[in-house]
């Protein structure tokens, strides 16, 4: 699985730095699950911590805040990948700690 780190890096770079309908700042904040105003902060926090609890009302609230479907799409993708990335990076650090030579 030698190409996984490069593939992950390309994915994260694309969603955060490439072109999009949501601003770079908004996508970054969604990825970090930090610094967003309501109603997006609730939606993004649910996506990150317990996505099965997301409801139609959460999406409707984002729409009512004048976000387009494309912007919601991008923000949710960034939120999901951000949380999965924190889990992955944290686990790799734990693995490094466990296998470090004394």
């Amino acid at each position: 699985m030698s190409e996984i780190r490069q593939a992950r890096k390309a994915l994260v770079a694309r969603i955060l730095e490439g072109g999009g309908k949501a601003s770079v700042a908004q996508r970054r904040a969604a990825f970090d699950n930090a610094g967003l105003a309501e109603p997006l902060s609730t939606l993004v926090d649910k996506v990150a911590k317990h996505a099965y609890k997301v409801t139609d009302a959460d999406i409707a609230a984002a729409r009512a805040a004048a976000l387009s479907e494309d912007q919601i799409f991008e923000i949710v993708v960034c939120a999901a990948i951000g949380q999965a990335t924190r889990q992955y990076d944290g686990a790799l650090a734990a693995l490094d700690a466990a296998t470090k030579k004394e």
Partner: protein
Amino acid sequence: MRLAILDRGHGSGTKALFALIRAVSRQPVLDVIKLVKYRPDFYGRPMQAVTHEAMRGPSAWSFGDRELMAALVAKTNGCEWCTRAHAAVAEGAFGDGTKISAVLSDLETAPIDEPLRATLRLLGKLTRQHVVNADDMRAALAAGASREQIEDALAVCFAFNTIGRLADTFGFSLASSKAFEAGAKYLLARGYR
């Protein structure tokens, strides 16, 4: 799905592809396909490259082992859609559903090797609690999983912790068993690209 663009916002070439898939498989197009084909330069293509490498790239884990990991992560996240989808692929990979049913009902008694059991336990904790520590890693290493195997399993976990969140947030519609079986056959034959 909760965003209409994911159901109907695709370009005409992709809509034609969906019509072909429906005609050939005689099943509706699965929502996960609709998601990766929507503005694929943003999410679908780079994500499929990650998922394919995680699920089908070179690894000491078999394809079936990795599908067990995917299904367990999905179940731990409470994502019924992904659990059913990857239970179907695991069943296809192993030739029957015994292992996958056992893993999903009780990991501790499932008829699998200890390194795999310890690795699945680790992925379950990471998915449930979002963090693991060095002691958790030492437990998996002590059970016989290599450092490289753990890294590979973490990549599988990354992919399905992403996809499961999207399935739940976008509201994927549960498909029939036949549709999941058709999807599983495709993934076993062609991979995730």
